[in-house]
């Protein structure tokens, strides 16, 4: 999906790097092989990237400038309409089993602002730090996901679940995945990864109370992705260390 945008913007100084968050790398390989991208396509089978950057859903994008400094934190990112999802739009849901019909009906309601994201990206590639979409470091930190203790604990629980699954103890992994879901219910990455290990279609299972169609109905499909916040950084914004609940050094010392 990203190849066309990469072809357009690579000559102007942008590289795209895709990272598949998949406990089972084989699941990602077929998509990469089909896309045959020119850009680096990496595999993160331990979900390190989502923990480090605060990613709670996919697709998400992060901008990194020439000096290795983030210019935007993780946020919903799409290069345009997804042909695979578009192809689902014409399916007659009355021909499907109930939970698949539910899934498709909800998926059709999801909103993702492709156009604005690509406009912003092009502007940044052209104008760099002068782009209104490039954020200063303090603002990047401020706009990243909050990480209270429950969320950090969810990350640890999710990692134990992954580890046990990889070691061949999938039933033991479920308890830790459920704990991660309980602690951070709005983390779709934790939910969908765990659900998919039991049922690739993420329908109802004995292992989990939630499943994709049920949980998305609970929040409203239009809220599946938060709206893009492309507003510029306020000029008088306090620094990250002034914000209550800021990183440990400010609070502890």
């Amino acid at each position, binding site marked *: 999906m990203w190849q066309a945008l990469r072809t357009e913007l690579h000559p102007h100084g942008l590289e795209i790097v895709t990272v598949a968050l998949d406990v089972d790398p084989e699941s990602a390989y077929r998509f990469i092989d089909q896309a045959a991208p020119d850009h680096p396509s990496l595999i993160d089978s331990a979900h390190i990237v989502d923990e*480090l950057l605060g990613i709670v859903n*996919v697709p998400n994008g*992060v901008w990194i400038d020439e000096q290795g400094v983030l210019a935007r934190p993780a946020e919903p990112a799409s290069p345009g309409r997804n042909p695979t999802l578009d192809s689902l739009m014409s399916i007659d849901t009355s021909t499907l089993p109930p939970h698949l019909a539910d899934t498709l009906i909800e998926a059709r309601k999801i909103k993702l602002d492709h156009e604005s994201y690509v406009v912003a990206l092009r502007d940044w590639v052209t104008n760099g730090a002068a782009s209104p979409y490039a954020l200063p470091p303090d603002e990047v930190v401020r706009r990243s996901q909050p*990480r209270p203790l429950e969320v950090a604990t969810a*990350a640890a629980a999710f990692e134990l679940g992954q580890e046990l699954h990889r070691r061949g103890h999938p039933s033991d992994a479920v308890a830790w995945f459920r704990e991660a879901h309980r602690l951070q219910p709005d983390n779709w990455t934790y939910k969908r990864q765990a659900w998919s290990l039991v049922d690739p279609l993420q329908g109802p299972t004995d292992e989990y109370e939630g499943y994709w169609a049920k949980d998305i109905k609970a929040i409203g499909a239009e809220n599946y992705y938060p709206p893009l916040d492309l507003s510029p950084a306020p000029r008088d914004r306090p620094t990250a260390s002034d914000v209550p609940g800021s990183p440990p050094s400010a609070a502890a010392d």
Partner: protein
Amino acid sequence: MILTSLDIDTAELERRTGWSIQPQGACKGDVCVPLSDGVVPSGRVSVPELAERLRMPLLRDETHGLWALGPESGGRALTTAAAPDLVLPDRQGRAFALSSLRGRKVLLVAWASW
């Protein structure tokens, strides 16, 4: 990060969490948190003390003898805007360092098959 013992190598800590052990304490980006003398005996980090200092959760799976050290808490997901020093395998299994792209703008896209 997954642990089988409660003292870990400083290099491994930095690779996995971004926190490096410096003379002034545990550091990530511009943030440094002072540590007491007992936290880094003999070049290895005592995990329970570090976890308490950085407000990192430490979970135990008794059945399998594992611990999981979660990320620091109490602030935002990002402690710093410096990009993490990621090294991940590509489709062919070759290690790719994000830092190899310094000098270019990068759009890092997280996706999944599920």
